[in-house]
């Protein structure tokens, strides 16, 4: 029987629903035994979600523990022979996965956004260029796959209906790993280049830029701005999208009242989906959008936020 392993980010100390969903996609309809590795975390919380939960002690929760964790997973892989090992596409996952793939000689498939199983094979869809080109990847015969998931693309549909067995395994080397965390501070000036979602204000928003923040928060994103707002002193240059600002590649770019000078558009080539909200449907940027909303950007942002909140409340009822 095929076996799939999910590894949760230690700092988060839980297996997130998207990992479970990805594991389900990997299994498809065929019989598949699902495993989770919990490194110094709460194994009991996973009861019912997977067939097997393995606990190992870890020398830490951050990057300093990665080499030891790689050895633990490799030992587990020797024992169970996983066909696929899944982990989040966070910075932590993107450091763990390549090392693990090197250790167990697996195919490394980063930032996967879709997994489809057919009779013969499993295929992984991932983005392969900054302008949004996608590729379908297969592993060669017999090679296990080490996969990181693009954040927020897999959403869970399963239930905790399994009988879970719990195993404990020895840790593989702790002690001084050679990396010590000295200080951790909140990144108060998050870089818009790192954002998955940007809600971006242009001249049509002007001084009301702060009113976009709640929508950006609800979408898990950040607020950015066009050059005109930076020039007017309304927004700082560090959040400016454009040739003299930053080149961005978010999954979603919501252009709120942005006309779309070519210097702005040049910095947007990597944006996957663009929604323009503008009173002028003939604003140049609208020509590049997937969707154009004709109307006042701030009012629309508030309406959309209300809708999102309503849905969320209904979902939790």
């Amino acid at each position, binding site marked *: 029987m095929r076996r799939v392993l999910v590894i949760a980010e230690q700092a988060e100390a839980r297996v997130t629903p998207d990992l479970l969903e990805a594991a389900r996609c990997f299994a498809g309809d065929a019989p598949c035994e699902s495993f989770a590795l919990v490194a110094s975390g709460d194994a009991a919380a996973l009861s019912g979600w997977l067939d097997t939960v393995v606990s190992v002690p870890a020398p830490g929760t951050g990057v300093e523990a990665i080499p030891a964790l790689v050895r633990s997973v490799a030992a587990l892989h020797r024992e169970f022979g996983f066909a696929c090992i899944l982990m989040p596409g966070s910075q932590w996952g993107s450091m763990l996965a390549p090392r693990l793939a090197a250790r167990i000689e697996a195919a490394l498939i980063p930032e996967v956004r879709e997994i489809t199983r057919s009779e013969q094979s499993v295929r992984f869809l991932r983005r392969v260029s*900054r302008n949004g080109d996608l590729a379908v990847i297969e592993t060669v015969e017999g090679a296990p796959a080490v996969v990181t998931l693009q954040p927020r693309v897999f959403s869970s549909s399963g239930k905790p209906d399994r009988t879970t067995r719990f195993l404990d395994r020895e840790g593989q080397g702790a002690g001084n790993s050679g990396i010590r965390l000295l200080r951790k501070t909140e990144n108060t000036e998050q870089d818009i280049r790192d954002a998955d979602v940007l809600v971006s204000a242009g001249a049509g928003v002007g001084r009301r830029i702060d009113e976009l923040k709640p929508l950006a928060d609800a979408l898990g994103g950040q607020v950015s701005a066009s050059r005109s707002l930076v020039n007017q002193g309304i927004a700082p240059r560090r959040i400016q999208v454009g040739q003299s600002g930053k080149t961005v590649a978010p999954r979603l770019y919501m252009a709120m009242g942005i006309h779309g000078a070519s210097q702005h558009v040049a910095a947007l080539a990597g944006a996957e989906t663009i929604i323009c909200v503008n009173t002028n449907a003939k604003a140049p940027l609208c020509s590049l959008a997937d969707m154009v909303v004709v109307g006042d950007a701030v009012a629309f942002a508030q309406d959309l936020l209300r809708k999102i909140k309503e849905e969320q409340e209904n979902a939790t009822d």
Partner: protein
Amino acid sequence: MKLVCITKPVPDGVSSDQEPQVPIRDTPAARLHPDDASAIGFALEIKRHRPETQVDVLILTEKPATALAEDIARVGANRVILIKNTLYQGSDSLTEARIIARALEARAYDCILAGSQTVEGGAACLPPQLAELLEINHLPFIRSVEEAAFSATGAVVETEDGAFVRRYAVDFPAILGLSERSGYRLPYPRLKEQRRDVSERIVALDNRDLKFAPEEVGAAAASSRTVTLHAANRQDRAPEIVDADAMGVERVHGFLKQRGIL
């Protein structure tokens, strides 16, 4: 102190601060990823303050890169090692890591410097895989290095992700992955410098030196393959136009759900 920078040239036009490339002539030169350029720039900056520092730059390349290697030598690298062999074409990152690991076998180093990201904007896979093969630490996304505390035994660095800034002490040997955001730049040699002969500082390695069997490298050794490629083309999209009313909100909400953003 011995620093080794590793890099693999990329097609031009990948700097995150550049406009999309519209090539006029189809002979793109080998260029460095801006993160890699920062890594080399940092090593040369250390050498500028401490001239006894040995900076070797190792370039794994499929395209001609002699001009690039010479430029790096002219701005201060002690040696530039070019690894070029058609046998290695189509290698995956693990195979490339193995090639570099073998090239490093005969070389002493305190710290290996690399970039953090790939051309596509994802995390670079080669440096962590090399770290695993060499059994040393790897720390990427470095946005600043304490230059004064940088020594043959370790460094103090700051990394950045979306939510946090972290400060680490790292013992050497280790691989440090720099980010373009560190602000280090690889200088260009002046025009008049370009006449200076630096050939004695360029070392070319190929498979006669590294001795891989054909099945160990190239596409033959890759453990995954691309089945199909879907090219994105924004210009061809016809946008859906809605009004900013209740229906428009409904439609956008549905669209965001469909795209997995909500």
